[in-house]
């Protein structure tokens, strides 16, 4: 390894730590260091504060199940389509076989496959819900994720219920090749039919929402909500910086930046998400989609 390679590697690994926002738990398992202000946070306090730093307001990424717990009325969630799993249509191998990656992710995170779907109540309104899980292969959309999202849209359509999707995804799952690209069209087509039926669709674009997910169902909602400092975009920052050969400003592709340019309806701190969804749902009650 040349000295230049060593520096390049070091720069790359630093970038990864910053951009991946991994939760850095301290060795005793009781404390987590805030990624933004570095304050040591007692895990129980962090949990009670919905995984938001009480010191600086930094929003940690949360798993799909944690998110569901934070959003829906207690005890109302019933999971759907849990038996759908990814397969390996191409026999894809990169530095590791896709099959192995899948098995590892299932072992670590359960059978969600990047998205948990179901029905639940939010402040008394029954909705169909899909919540993506960035921890499962970067929340990438393969055939299984596309199918679960599509079925959730169809469930909402048939039951005349509002649809809520919480996105967190790096984009299409490359290991399924063009089939994953086609999931963009599949989900968008289902949403177009849902929209024709007058269905209400609210999306929460969580950190991060990029690529094939942001360029399909995520941005097709009637109302687009995000959380503070969430990264949302089509192309990744690094790809853009390499293409234009200059640095993008720090606020580039943050929710605040998107709000300024009219791409979002609002940024809602996590503690206010549930009441905001409840209010929006009530304001649309009586519309065709919410009355069976």
């Amino acid at each position, binding site marked *: 390894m040349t000295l230049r390679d060593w520096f390049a590697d070091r720069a790359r690994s630093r970038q990864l730590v910053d951009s991946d926002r991994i939760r850095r738990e301290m060795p005793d398992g009781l404390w987590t260091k805030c990624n933004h202000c570095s304050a040591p946070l007692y895990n129980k306090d962090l949990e009670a504060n919905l995984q938001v730093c009480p010191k600086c307001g930094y929003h940690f990424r949360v798993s799909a199940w944690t998110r569901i717990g934070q959003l829906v009325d207690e005890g109302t969630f019933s999971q759907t389509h849990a*038996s*759908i*799993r*990814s*397969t390996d*249509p*191409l026999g*894809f*191998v*990169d530095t590791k076989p896709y099959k192995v990656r899948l098995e590892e992710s299932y072992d670590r995170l359960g059978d969600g496959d990047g998205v948990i779907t179901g029905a639940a109540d939010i402040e008394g309104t029954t909705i169909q819900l899909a919540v993506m899980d960035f921890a499962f292969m970067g929340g990438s959309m*393969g*055939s*299984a994720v*596309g*199918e679960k999202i*599509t079925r959730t849209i169809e469930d909402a359509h048939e039951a005349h219920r509002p649809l809520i999707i919480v996105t967190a995804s790096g984009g*299409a799952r*490359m290991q*399924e*090749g*063009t*089939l*994953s*690209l*086609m*999931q*963009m*069209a*599949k989900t*968008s*087509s*289902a949403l*177009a*039919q849902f*929209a*024709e039926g007058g269905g209400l669709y609210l999306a929460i674009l969580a950190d991060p929402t990029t*690529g*094939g997910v*942001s*360029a*399909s*169902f*995520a*941005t*097709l909602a009637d109302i687009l909500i995000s959380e503070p400092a969430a990264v*949302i*975009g*089509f*192309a990744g920052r690094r*790809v*853009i910086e390499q*293409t*234009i050969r200059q640095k*993008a400003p720090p606020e*580039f*592709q943050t929710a605040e*930046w998107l709000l300024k*340019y*009219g*791409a979002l309806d609002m940024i809602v701190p996590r503690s206010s998400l549930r009441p905001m969804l409840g209010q929006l749902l009530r304001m649309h009650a009586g519309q065709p989609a919410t009355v069976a």
Partner: protein
Amino acid sequence: MESSRLTSRKLVFDFERPIVEIEDEIEEFKRLAAQNEVNLDDEIARLTERVTAARQTIYRQLKPVQRVQVARHPSRPSALDYIQNICEGFVELHGDRQGYDDRAIVGGLASFEGRTIVVVANQKGRDTKDNIMRNFGMAHPEGYRKALRLFRHAGKFGLPVLTLIDTPGAYPGIEAEQRGQSAAIALNLFEMSRLPVPIVSVVIGEGSSGGAMGIGVSDRILMLEHSYYAVISPEGCAAILWKDPSKAKMAAEAMGITAEDLLRLGIADEIIPEPLGGAHQDPLAAAHNLKAALGPHLAELSRLGAYELVERRAAKYRAMGRFIEEF
């Protein structure tokens, strides 16, 4: 990526070297014949046959990454070349009506076999200057909005739509993001899926990622023999999964991006043969093949009513994907 070199203004790929060697030999024989006033026609004819045979062998066995090279050949016919050769009376329509005309996407009205159609296409440049104007075929959100405006025009007047796909991807830039690249593409998927007229897409070169998909939701997808259609460019895939862009060859093979792969996966409906050595060897023949393939699809789809078209398109995309369901 394998390297390529420019000889006498003609791009030659590494894998074409055996062909070039014989071609050089022919030139040498021609020179000798002229210089010494001897007849070497038989020799030359024999060598010419060998060129054809060598090209056949090589092109029959092209690896995916080599297909990508052919699909990116700078002399490969662009969308406008095809439009001019398969349609009559092309009337280009410009602009998204919201402040910009993106030249990376062209569109307009044309007559195809006596029927008016709407054409929307990714347009790459034919030379450096043109490429700068066309942004190398990479559209900004305005390009997708221009496309959408033309799709709506087609819907309003009951005109079939032809889209020609040839892009390395939607443009990754700060302003493209600022003006809503994701949302522009997403809206096209949404509206194309319900457009009440026939839509046929033909991948003529590069079909890369969401940038291709943004004009690619259709009733039929045809692919030229050496085109590719991928979720991300092989270099992009290699950079992310292998952390090494030079692994593009492996990425191209792993992702299944050739016309045969997509036909097998049920995404492409037909492969359009190219002239030997790629469409750039004989653009007119390539256009002829495209026209011959396109005609029956458009005719067949035009017999369906709007409702049936849209329902069939919805069912087609509904069935896309491979997963398992355990009970």
